[in-house]
């Protein structure tokens, strides 16, 4: 699918995937897909386990190379190692290990400082901890956190840094209903701030609350797309 300038609402796409597919030996995990993510837009990928959502996200983050097709960021071919990708694309969701001897606050400090937080880093970390409901656990070791709190830590790690694109793989996992509501609000604020959000989720309510466009995948193939309501009704 190719979008014209008008269709993109007169905004340059940040991330563009054109005819991207991925095969592992004889298994085609992702059939050719086009995707264009604009600033302030959220695209939700929906589908059952093994439908190709995470594969598509990894490719969009530059962490996997497509078998065919092209991925570009700001019009240039995307490379995970490129400085601009590291500075602007924030990825959360892949199983993340932690330093066993560093506290939650120290982990976030490290990320904030690495992204040029400088003197503002401590304040930024405190605000992020508060936003992610981790203020009481700032001095705890990550090993002592519950699974939901660890998920919140992963989200905090992307919020404590500057970003133009947010790539989130099932961020609602292990979050309680209250935290899921908070997550939806957070993503809406991110969009309002101009960030592009690419989100894989099993939670239709979350997609409906935040996504401008939904892409439904099954066996690596797009079987529906449009607004979340349209996409889901087509599939049904």
């Amino acid at each position, binding site marked *: 699918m190719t979008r014209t*300038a008008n269709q993109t609402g*007169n*905004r*340059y796409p*940040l991330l563009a995937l054109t005819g991207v597919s991925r095969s592992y030996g*004889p298994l085609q995990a992702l059939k050719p897909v086009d995707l264009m993510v604009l*600033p302030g837009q959220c695209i939700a990928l929906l589908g059952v386990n093994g439908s190709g959502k995470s594969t598509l996200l990894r490719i969009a983050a530059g*962490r*996997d190379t497509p078998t065919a097709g092209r991925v570009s960021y*700001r019009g240039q071919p995307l490379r*995970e*190692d490129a*400085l*601009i990708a*590291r*500075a*602007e*694309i924030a*990825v959360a969701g892949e199983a*993340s*290990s*932690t*330093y066993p*001897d*560093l506290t939650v606050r*120290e*982990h976030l*400090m*490290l*990320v904030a*400082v*690495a*992204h*040029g*937080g*400088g003197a503002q880093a401590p304040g930024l970390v405190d605000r992020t901890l508060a936003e992610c409901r981790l203020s009481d656990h700032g001095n705890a070791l990550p090993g002592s956190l519950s699974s939901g709190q660890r998920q919140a830590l992963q989200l905090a*790690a992307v919020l404590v*840094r*500057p*970003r*133009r694109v947010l790539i989130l793989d099932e961020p609602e996992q292990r979050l309680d209903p209250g935290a899921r509501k908070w997550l939806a609000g957070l993503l809406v604020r991110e969009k309002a701030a*101009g960030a592009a959000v690419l989100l894989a989720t099993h939670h239709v309510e979350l997609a409906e609350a935040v996504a401008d466009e939904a892409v439904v995948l099954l066996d690596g193939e797009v079987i529906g797309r449009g607004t979340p309501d349209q996409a889901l009704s087509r599939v049904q």
Partner: protein
Amino acid sequence: MTAEAPAIERADSTDETIRLLRELRRTHARKQAADLAFWLYLAAFAIFSYGGWLVAAIVRALRRPPPPIADTPMLLRAAPGGLAALALLVLVVLLWDAGWRGPVVIAQPTADWLLDTPIRRDRLLRPRYRASVLKLILAGAATGLVPAALLLAAGLGGSGLGDSLRLAGVAMLNTGLLAGFGAGVAAWAEAHSYSRLRLATPLGLLAAIALAGLAALTAALGLPAAIGTVLLWSGPWGWAAQAPVALAGGSATLWPAATLLLGLAAAAAITLGDRAAADVPAAVLRARAHTLGHMSAAVFNMDVRRVTTAYRSATGTYGRARLRIRPPLSRQLVLVWRDLTALLRAPSRLAWSALLALASVALGALAVRAPHADLLPLAGALILGYLAAAGLCEGARLDGDDPRRSAQLPFRYDTLAQLHAIVPCLALAVLAGGPAAVLTIITGHARLLILVALTIAVLVGGALVNSFRGQLEGEMFEGFDTPLGNSSGVTITLWYVTGPLLAVGPMIILWYKAINAGPASLAIPETVLSAALAAWLFHITAGRARRLKTG
């Protein structure tokens, strides 16, 4: 169109980040240094407490090197090829290591928390690379003691302490330089042609075997000395071998030039590696860090199975061949079909088993030479045979790892455990029985063939006992205190070696006695006892399987 979203402006905070990380982890680094010092102390204490005799023997050998023996001239002829093969082996090990781990390696949390930040990769990766190079050079230098010791033992160590130390010194220097060269090449390959590295390892191994074969031929047939000269100039492995060959009395007059060449090559490779270290892709670094994380956890839990699984996942050595065998019509044959398919789809495992079986038969042939059996070759033959059998029991191990995997099969779990013996027994009959039959035809002595035939079921039985041992339980780590220390070490070792101990131990005794009883002693008692032992091992396997099933 409206303006493009502006790029995020940021100052380079690499130094600040690395300083912060170092500061935050200072306590951890101190603890690591203290742990290392403790282990070094413990190793030194153990060497001087329990290995005092060994240290004394080494000092004695250095002061008065053994005199030349009858075979010394022959060994000297073999030295160029043999030492070049050893040096090439060092390089092959480094290339193999680079294929899944490599000299540029970072901790898993660093990969997860810092790789996708915009800090400069060279400041993050080069210190790791340099530390790896230093460690590899030290390890390489220590490896140099092996050829030095071999030359000393062969009576080629000169006449006094000075000669011995000089020989050991140049051997250590040259293997250290060779390791530095290998580390640099490995880092470069990690950054540039990662996939080709996998091809380099088996090719290097084949070349090392060819060099060793050439060395043996040179020694046995007295091939022209020019061949040795060509080998010594064939590459860094040959340059590394020249100084020890020269000091041992061989022909390598230009060894200072070769050492200089090796030094220059090592310096160039290390510099090249240093530049390349910053370019190792994040995906490679992340994958390797995760593999090492999994491996460390598995080693910490003493779970050998998980270590090999993590290694195979990293190197992609799982079932590359996509061979299909038509499913059987009879459901009774489904397990045999599955085991056979698994075996044929992992040709490397089959090849290793074939190699081990061949080595086992060769040692077995050496052991059963009438009129007296040698204990060491016999034990070696049975141990290698066990390893070959264990390699063929992968299907059993998979079912042993997770009893749910075979829940749909039309067998009781304990019966299924025993049925897993069919394919390994048949495969071993071909892999070991074939070469044994050939040797029997050539020599006219059937004893080796009888040994192989009677041992197969026992060895497979032992491998099955181990396959169905279940998970290592946490309680085993606790053990109980005895006057000789905590029992957990012995318990865990026994947990791992029960199968080979029960299979190989009795067979060594049985066959050692039978062979020494003379050629008139025929195999009837051995047949009965071997069959009884195999039946007992299958019985234990079934018992273990029942315990696994009931949890």
